[in-house]
């Protein structure tokens, strides 16, 4: 069932030609606001990074519909195994921007207590948004294992495993999709094909005719969808979820989109992305397209949009204020969570580190007795 032409629901002019929209107006506006929130998060983080207040961030301009459309197809009881670019999925499901901002600043209220780089989020509430890991593709078989547990218990949940075009070359892609298909595990594999893996264009990543066709190697359906079309994303992912919940096994979804910015704040895409390519994709901006769709339903005007965007920026800015004012993790955070309980050798190393810090009067080490 590989579809050669990407599935599209919202035409570039915003019309949907008789498509049965299955979301309320409020829900549509929630999707829209989430995309604006992602954009605001991006903008603010870029400025923070440029001014040295945070070390790193990952731009999402261009891929917002992909994330939000996919997320909208999930239930709160489902699990997301995200890539580092997917925080829009968490925002959609109600994770507060400030929770993320704690991570961006690596402070003590970060769920990972400042151990991870920025954008490596982890949440268990209000949805399982599994701790992001830098090594590409490792989370793919993990999603399959979590889905196997769901299936064994007879739960009707699914796992969404999201990764990039580059991720399809990883080991985890191969083992994950293979195991999932053999086990008929309830997983949806979402390949966000944004044109590049850092600087590597798709034609140097694979010689296959598409990413979706790789599904054939594993005996599962593969679908191509317009990743800049929120409703098409939702439709395709929802169908895959439904099939998975019904015991029909996994699906590979390829979402065709484009990363409008650099790979990260450390990257200079002008070294490798042709200008014309960026320009051509600029015309397909997923947010503008969704705005035209909303306008066609009288849910949007430029003024309303601007107000909402301001509101989002305010929310993000407030999050920055709170996160930046939160202290760094204390020294103890280096030693905890390695094991469920602190083994003696780590207690000794922690104590020594604490003693030394205390002796040389190191404020960052946190006051008082070594707490573990």
């Amino acid at each position, binding site marked *: 069932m590989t579809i050669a032409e990407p599935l599209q629901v919202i035409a570039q002019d915003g019309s949907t030609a008789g498509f049965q929209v299955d979301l309320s107006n409020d829900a549509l506006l929630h999707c829209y606001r989430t995309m604006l929130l992602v954009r605001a998060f991006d903008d603010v983080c870029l400025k923070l990074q440029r001014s040295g207040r945070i070390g790193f961030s990952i731009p999402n301009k261009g891929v917002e519909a992909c994330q939000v459309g996919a997320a909208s197809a999930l239930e709160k009881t489902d699990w997301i195994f995200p890539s580092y670019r997917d925080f829009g999925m968490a925002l959609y499901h109600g994770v507060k921007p400030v929770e993320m901002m704690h991570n961006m600043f690596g402070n003590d209220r*970060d769920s990972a207590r400042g151990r991870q780089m920025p954008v490596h989020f982890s949440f268990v509430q209000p949805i399982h948004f599994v701790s992001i890991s830098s090594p590409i593709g490792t989370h793919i078989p993990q999603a399959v*294992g979590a889905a196997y547990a769901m299936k064994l218990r007879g739960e009707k949940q699914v796992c969404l495993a999201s990764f990039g075009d580059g991720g399809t070359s990883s080991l985890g892609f191969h083992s994950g999709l293979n195991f999932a298909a053999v086990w008929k595990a309830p997983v949806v594999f979402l390949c966000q094909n944004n044109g590049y893996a850092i600087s590597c264009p798709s034609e140097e990543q694979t010689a296959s005719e598409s990413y979706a066709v790789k599904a054939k190697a594993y005996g599962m359906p593969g679908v191509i969808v317009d990743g800049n079309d929120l409703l098409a994303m939702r439709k395709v992912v929802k169908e895959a979820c439904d099939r998975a919940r019904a015991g029909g096994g996994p699906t590979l979804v390829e979402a065709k989109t484009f990363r409008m910015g650099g790979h990260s704040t450390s990257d200079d895409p002008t070294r490798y992305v042709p200008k014309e390519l960026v320009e051509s994709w600029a015309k397909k901006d997923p947010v503008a397209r969704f705005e035209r769709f909303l306008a066609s339903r009288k849910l949007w005007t430029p003024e309303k949009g601007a107000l909402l965007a301001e509101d989002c920026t305010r929310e993000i800015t407030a999050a920055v204020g709170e996160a930046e004012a939160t202290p760094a993790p204390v020294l103890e955070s280096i030693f905890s969570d390695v094991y469920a309980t602190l083994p003696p050798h780590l207690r000794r190393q922690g104590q020594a580190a604490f003693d030394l810090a205390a002796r040389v009067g190191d404020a960052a080490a946190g006051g008082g007795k070594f707490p573990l």
Partner: protein
Amino acid sequence: MPTLTLVQAVNDALKTAMRRDPTVIHFGEDVGPKGGVFLASDGLTKEFGKARNFDTPLSEDGIIGTAIGMAMNGLKPVAEIQFQDFIFPAFDQIVSEAAKLRYRSGGQYTAPMVIRTPYGGGIRGGLYHSQSGEAYFCHTPGLKVVVPSTPEDAKGLLLASIEDPDPVLFLEPKALYRQVKGEVPEGFYTTPLSTLRTVRTGKDVTVFCYGAMVPVCSKAAEQAAEKGIDCLIVDLRTLLPLDEEGVLEAARQTGRVVIVHEAPRFCGFGAEISAMIAENIIEYMEAPVARVTGFDTPFPNTLEHHYMPDARRVLDAIEHVAKF
């Protein structure tokens, strides 16, 4: 108490765990109808069904990757890697993922799971069916590494590993699978991790060993006794987290130490024991700290009996440090 071989004790532990806890599942290559290449999982599919004991496709990355996901989501996976030599395709999943998941998520996600795998020489397996890779894993914070040497410990330590909230690599000395027999308590019991076992008390030389080297060291100690050298033999059992206090205490008792393992010497596990001693109790040492190990070469086939430490080589080292 029934008398079991080491591999039968492993099988007994798996059955015991799966009977008392429905979340325990066991899988790997050829562990289903075939029962595992060493028969460690013999009868599991029959008793627990295909959903709880099953064969996987040929991908160690897939085996460990899916095990991590299962562990995150409420199961207690016990994954078999057919030979420890074939664990390396899963190295990334073990070292980057299982070991670091709790840390990187601030405890929100964890990977309580067990990786069972036969390790070591003695079956004429050559380069790729004989390796002892414990040092690779012991250098990885977040993991636990366990190596039994008796049937009773094999069962008790495996059950403790399955109960453990952290990922455990459970290395089974394949040379001992059928070579050692012993009484094994029936039903559920655990042998606590991170505790040492005194195999033999003695006052002259302390010998640290684990896994298949334990019987080798015992034999060497008997021969040493004939020569008037009285050895204390310590079976480390859990290599990570190691009972360091216990190790230092045992080393201090004699002031003369021999460390024995099959793995290559350079950056092997023995180096850590030696370094620990040099760092903490060097002033108690009355002799060099000797290591008897595999050579710093790949594992050969025909000459494996020269490669693996035997009683002859261990005795030589015992005499060397005793007479120093």
